[in-house]
């Protein structure tokens, strides 16, 4: 398994550095490739235009069969699907994960999720959630009900 893990992440890193999608930059990838920091920029003409956010990716040895753990760090965007502890409510990060998804496609999904927001606000249950949530968002049982934003 770890063979796939290394090969795949090395290639993803190479691709992202050689040929990065608009507004997505790999800030730092650990030598063992297990933890990455990726900076994404809010798309032009959206509520987050010009803002930059830092995402942390953590990969288990089972990647890409198992989804990475993805959270926002430091400056956490105010968005109805992003909790103030950095956890993101996005189905492809949890039960809709597919091994064919990549870091690049995850970043693009998050960028597009930011772009489609119409109002900067926290999720309605934010206060409750951050009190009870575990450190890793993968320990939460997510219910996905809003396909629009």
């Amino acid at each position, binding site marked *: 398994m770890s063979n*796939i893990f290394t*090969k*795949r992440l090395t290639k993803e890193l190479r691709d992202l550095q050689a040929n990065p999608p608009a507004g997505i930059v790999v800030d730092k990838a650990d030598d063992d490739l297990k933890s990455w920091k990726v900076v994404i920029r809010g798309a032009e003409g959206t509520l987050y235009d010009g803002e930059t956010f830092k995402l942390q990716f953590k990969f288990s040895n089972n990647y*890409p069969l198992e989804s990475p753990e993805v959270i926002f760090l430091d400056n956490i965007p105010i968005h109805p699907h992003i909790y103030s502890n950095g956890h993101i409510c996005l189905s492809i990060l949890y039960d*809709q994960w*597919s*091994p*064919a998804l990549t870091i690049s496609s995850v970043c693009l999904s998050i960028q597009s999720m930011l772009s489609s927001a119409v109002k900067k606000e926290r999720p309605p249950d934010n206060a409750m959630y951050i009190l009870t949530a575990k450190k890793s968002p993968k320990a939460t049982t997510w219910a996905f009900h809003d396909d629009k934003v």
Partner: protein
Amino acid sequence: MSAMDYDDDYMDDDDVDEYDSDTGMDVDDDGEDDYGAGDGFAPVVADRDVKKPYEVDFKVHSTDEIVAFQTKEVAHVAGILGCLPEHAATLLRTFKWNKERLIERYMEDPEGESEKAGVVMDAQKQAKFAIVKGFECPICCNDDADMETLALHCEHRFCRDCYAHYLNEKVAEQGESRRIQCMSAGCKVVVDEITVEKVVAPEILAKYRSLLLRTYVDDSVHLKWCPAPDCVYAIECHIASNQLLEVVPTVRCKCGHQFCFGCGLPDHQPCICVLVRFWLKKCADDSETANWISANTKECMKCMSTIEKNGGCNHMTCKKCKHEFCWVCLGPWSDHGTAWYNCNRFDEKASIDARDTQAKSRQALERYLHYYNRYANHEQSAKLSSELLEKTAIKMEALQSTSTLSWIEVQFLRKACDVLLESRMTLKWTYSFAYFLSRDNMTALFEDNQRDLEMAVENLNELLERPIPGVDVASTAATTITPQQQPSHHHVNNGAGTPTSMSKEPSATSLPPLTPSHSTPSVLVEDSIRDLRQQVLDKMGYVKTRREVLLSDTTQGLREHRWGMNVDMKTGILFD
């Protein structure tokens, strides 16, 4: 016995209704015809002549029978649709084994339904391994020239190794089977059985097959796995969910485990599933803590903080808001002046209201505790059953060695213990049932039945605990075995005797034929034992009758909607 006759008639009618309503479920009806044909599906309850109102029909199936039944269904559908059995199986699983609906839908739109189920009928389009030049697997990024790749009809191509890892993970780790999808994000195409077969190792395939098999029972509303640990049997029972309000469908698996088909919990007759759920929730959650609070505390009239008075005078000062009030009448302290001991504000509306609420919740608490204590008491007694069984086993041993009674003749004690336990379980649940009954004449009848059963049970229990005159249990069980009894030991003791007696046998052969202490009073002892046997049998019979009466009448009452309930059946909230 006109009442009983009426019971039977009523049941007969009801049976007819049940079968009528079931004819829509063809899958199982077919099955029943087959069982009749004598292919091993023997009815378990054949030894009961007349079904009692509280009993339901059920059958126990082994895994092999389930497999055979499934295979037959698949072959049947494959014949009608003209496709491979594997495809028919996938379609049937998608339609939760509803054959009619599948055939109807399939006839309308064969391609659409196959696609939805992830079935590829065309053998040409069936996924097969291919070596594609210049292909790089999007998952492992491998691009070896001789790498085998695989794509389902959605054309999402991945390498063989990634497919194998993926399917291993899904089957072995996540226990999925019939809904494993293509690895591509968002692709809904199901990985079919033939493809899984090609890719995975034999042990994973075996697991996959057994998971698929389980879905048959899981999908069917008339089948349930026996919840006992490691039990391999499934139970078939035709009970509609709305019937659960009228009867507790207790079934007994071949492994001996007795459980409710409706909710899977151990037998809880006569209390219906929904009430059991409310009751267990009530016992488990801390709603009684809340009840205690309202029964033993008062609220500050100003800030509503909860206060328990544990000493001191009646001049209360709320720690939170500094409101001063009188504990007795809850009115503000300022009104009391210095002559407050006469507390002339007794009639003030606010204080009456406060008192009323408190009295009410105190009463509710007492009521709950009344039922709970009795419920818990029977549960506790049942837990001590292993002790009673042990004691009884020793007693049975002693009886055999003291009298001329044979192994089979002392089995009445064992049987009596079983009846006792069964009735204790019933009694336990009568208290949870009674908790939800509103007070009326019908409830009085129920309580009469409950009382009769309880008295009978206690009498029987006392009799079983009583030492048998002339039989020294301690010494007999430990050492003395007369040689006359030994042959019978050898033949019939399988499993029932205590291990001590077995291990003592070699040394026992050296004992004299009959010890003098046994010879003279043995006639008297035997008389008293026969006397006891008669008593136990009588009392046991009575307990059984009382239990039957109670269960029959309760079920009958549920059918006739005779019981007034003081609970909202949807929310479980008690009415005032």
